[in-house]
């Protein structure tokens, strides 16, 4: 009896199990069939994996979206334009364009919602948003000018010329060097002028 031939399939199976456990599959949270429903100008919200535990600790039971971007359909590809701070020291934060897959990947998001503002002006808003590409991230969270932008400011500014006002609910924040109004993603998400495209 050759012990090697007896145990080698078991050992191979064990290795396969270990390998599959240690390499989690990163995938988009949006089902593939939803991509066909996306239109330029749709707002895409995500609850970041970094904020999920904070929301639970704050005693909230429902999803709270902590980031928002806008869908841009370019050459039939679904992209997201959004404003983000630098993730690493070598990276530059600001307004950038990335794939929907990356934006909604399971290591970045635990919940995603796609909402469409009324009046069919999404194409125009997306064109306006693209003019902001390369602007720096607004760490001062200043809504007064567009020299730098944060996530909600980017989408609200892009819709404002087309009579969609996403600034309806502003939070007053009083912190050092930061006394002003703050537009939060959840406060845009809860506006009644948005129509649900997909939530998951």
């Amino acid at each position: 009896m050759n012990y090697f031939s007896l145990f080698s399939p078991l050992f191979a199976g064990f290795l396969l199990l270990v390998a599959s456990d240690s390499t989690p599959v990163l995938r988009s949270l949006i089902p593939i069939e939803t991509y066909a429903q996306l239109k330029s100008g749709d707002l895409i919200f995500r609850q970041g994996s970094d904020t999920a535990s904070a929301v639970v600790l704050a005693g909230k039971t429902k999803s709270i979206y902590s980031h928002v971007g806008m869908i841009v359909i370019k050459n039939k590809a679904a992209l997201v334009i959004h404003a983000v701070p630098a993730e690493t020291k070598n990276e530059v934060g600001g307004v950038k364009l990335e794939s929907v897959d990356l934006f909604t990947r399971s290591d970045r998001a635990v919940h995603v919602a796609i909402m469409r503002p009324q009046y069919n002006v999404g194409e125009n808003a997306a064109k306006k948003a693209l003019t902001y590409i390369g602007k720096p991230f607004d760490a001062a969270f200043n809504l007064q000018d567009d020299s730098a932008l944060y996530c909600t400011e980017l989408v609200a500014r892009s819709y404002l010329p087309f009579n969609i006002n996403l600034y309806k609910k502003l939070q007053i924040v009083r912190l050092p060097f930061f006394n002003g109004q703050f537009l939060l993603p959840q406060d845009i998400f809860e506006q009644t002028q948005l129509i649900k495209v997909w939530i998951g």
Partner: protein
Amino acid sequence: MKKLFIALFVLLLVACSQNPKGVVEAYYNNLDNGEITEAYKLMSKQLTGQAGEQKIRAMLQEQAKGMQKKGGIVSLATEGEAKGEIGEFTVHIVYKDGTKKDDKVSVTKEADGWKISLR
């Protein structure tokens, strides 16, 4: 001896988070020392949950940079009080460059102690 210092430090942190005024002062001192991670720990979960860790950290770095530009804090006095689970404080700050500033800061009581919050 080292263990005693660690125990005292932990005790200080716990005491701090149970005292709303102490949380406000610790927040300013952390920013003044560039301790972004420590300042982040004092932020309300409701705020960090709604804005996201990356954005809040970027905001804290901006605040720390603002303090550095003024040379750092020379003196800090806090007045105000907490009622129930909400507190409102006025922080009188004098910076090294001579500027004086009065900030309004709100705190809220969460499961793990008092935290800096939206108003």
